[in-house]
């Protein structure tokens, strides 16, 4: 495991584990609460929950600087939380309140905060990939040493913009991470029904860039794999396609029961047995790098922070309908 890395300074394995654990627990509790609130009708709109895939966002973000930009997807809460978004503005946005990240104009699929490098979630599958390429272009143009990561799913790797953006990043040799979160499904369509290949990483060869596969349930592995790609990118060696094999624990949208016709209970059980947070905690404690108490404390403080954020969101004012036409244009 890397002792030091670029974005943050880990002086020891322990620090990395704590960092990854923190990011994952924050995502998990944010999502569990968001799901409950939506199902109960307290919160409007749709939610594509990230639960189960936490190791990918945590592992990737743990290698990035705040100034490194990412573009996300419809399933973007996990990326935002891992990149450092605060719960209050996120919940407020999910509630459509004026205090939210988008002042209520965007909702779940459009959380963004360039200050922390969250260039934005996106409702259009593949829509964010070329945008990340543009963010990376800006870093080279300004020689600021930044990298950009584009997240997308197995299904998203079938849309034209993935192909165009990957080839563009390759031929312009841009510092881009193409992060495919392969959770085996595009909505309700299994991977075998939307592509003939098993590994999306195989597509990298078509662009002349490296394609690597990593266990998307193992945050440390994701961290290490991404770190190598980030170092390549910062060194001016161009983009890397990273395929993280993962799984979503809930339905495509919302928090319905796990057992849905298109997935077998066995399949779900096998993946849940490899819960990324449980695995990391077990490992950290076995290796004596973290205490059970520390883990518990993280869950508790995060629970409290979620509760605070929800209270903040609920107490926040609705947007003023008089501002409906604000920010259509920059004047």
């Amino acid at each position, binding site marked *: 495991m890397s002792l030091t890395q670029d974005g943050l300074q880990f002086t020891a394995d322990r620090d990395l584990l704590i960092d990854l654990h923190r990011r994952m627990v924050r995502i998990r509790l944010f999502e569990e609460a968001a799901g409950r609130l939506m199902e109960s009708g307290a919160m*409007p709109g749709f939610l594509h929950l990230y639960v189960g895939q936490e190791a990918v966002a945590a592992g990737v973000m743990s290698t990035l600087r705040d100034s490194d930009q990412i573009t996300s997807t419809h399933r973007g809460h996990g990326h935002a939380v891992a990149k450092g978004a605060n719960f209050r503005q996120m919940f407020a946005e999910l509630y459509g309140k004026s205090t939210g990240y988008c002042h*209520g*104009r965007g909702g779940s699929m459009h959380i963004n905060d360039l200050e922390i490098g969250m260039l934005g979630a996106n409702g259009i599958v593949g829509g964010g990939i070329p945008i990340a390429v543009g963010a990376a272009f800006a870093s080279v143009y300004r020689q600021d040493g930044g990298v950009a990561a584009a997240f997308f799913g197995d299904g998203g790797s079938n849309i034209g913009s993935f192909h165009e953006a990957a080839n563009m990043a390759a031929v312009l040799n841009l510092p881009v991470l193409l992060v495919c979160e392969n959770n085996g499904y595009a909505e309700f369509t299994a991977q075998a029904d939307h*592509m003939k290949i098993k590994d999306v990483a195989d597509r990298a060869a078509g662009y002349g860039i490296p394609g690597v596969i990593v266990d998307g349930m193992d945050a440390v592995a994701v961290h290490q794999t991404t770190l190598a790609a980030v170092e390549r990118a910062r060194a001016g060696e161009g983009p890397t396609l990273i395929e993280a094999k993962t799984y979503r624990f809930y339905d495509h949208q919302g928090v319905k029961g796990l057992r849905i*016709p298109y997935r077998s209970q066995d399949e779900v059980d096998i993946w849940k047995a490899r819960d990324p947070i449980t695995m990391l905690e077990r490992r950290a404690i076995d290796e004596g790098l973290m205490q059970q108490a520390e883990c518990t404390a993280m869950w508790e403080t995060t629970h409290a922070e979620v509760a605070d954020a929800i209270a903040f969101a609920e107490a926040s004012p609705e947007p003023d*309908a008089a501002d*409906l036409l604000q920010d*259509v244009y920059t004047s």
Partner: protein
Amino acid sequence: MSTQTSDLQATATAIETPPQRQLTYVKAFNEGVAQMMRTDPDVFLVGEDVAGYGGVFHMFDGLKNEFGARRVVDTPISEAAIIGLGVGAAARGLRPICDLMFMDFLGVCMDQVVNQAAKMKYMYGGTVSVPLTITTAGGAGVGASAQHSQSLEAWLAHVPGLKVAMPSDAYDAKGLIVAAIRDDNPTIVVLNKLLLGAKSHVPEELYAIPFGQAKIVRPGRDVTVVAIGRMVTEARAAAELLAAEGIEVEVVDPRTVQPLDTATIVESARRTNRVLVVHEAVTFGGIGAEIAAQIQDEAFDYLDAPVLRVGAPFSPVPFSPVLEKAYVPDAQRILAGCRRLLERG
């Protein structure tokens, strides 16, 4: 024996006049597709999650079971290839139904719709027909935000070669999808998300509603409201409110915006002398502009007031329910529009 007879008669009457069958918009649409697939073996369906799942709006529930994987096909997330597949199969004489989950996704397949499907017949000299049907869902009001709520029919109506239907109730949802599938040209049928559960009478037998024939949904002498898609419902509500004041609003539903039944609209305008055009799309550059431009041209000497328009304000669709409610046109804004028309000379 007499009893028997009367019993039989009773039964007979019961059979002759069954209670009118009510169906939801989405079920009526689904029935139209299913009936066409039963009657024409060349009709097939491709799209994302249309087979195993039946479509995210359940537009296609049960079709995979009845017609099998050969005729009901799930695809990758590749809208350009989905429409392109339809264009190629249609050019060879099949009748593809290509589903575009949300109308907003036109952005990723506009070339196949506009530069390929729409132009093929003309630029190839008339030798090829493209009997392709694209089904999609438009409209706001469901908290789906800026990229899943647009009404973009004006783009399509501006393209020679395309036909565009906007069903406003369950009866039309069935009749227009049937007409679209039977049409030998590329057609787009735009369902409205908020109407999916709306019920109305839908005959069981297969029927088609001809494109380019507007429907006078409600006759009236004082004001004409030309309403598109779901706005027909809002226009009816506004008409009810004004009727209470003795103002008779005529509600006209064009049903298809390409071709557009100018004759019926102009005839109504000449009778009422006051016209309001309503749609969910942003007002600027919407299909209402074309309708208003045609009315003021062809009914110039009959108008007592300018043709007014009610549409969405000029911004993307906001997420917040409060903002979205203020954004989407409704009965109140239609009512206000009618009052402005009536205030004029």
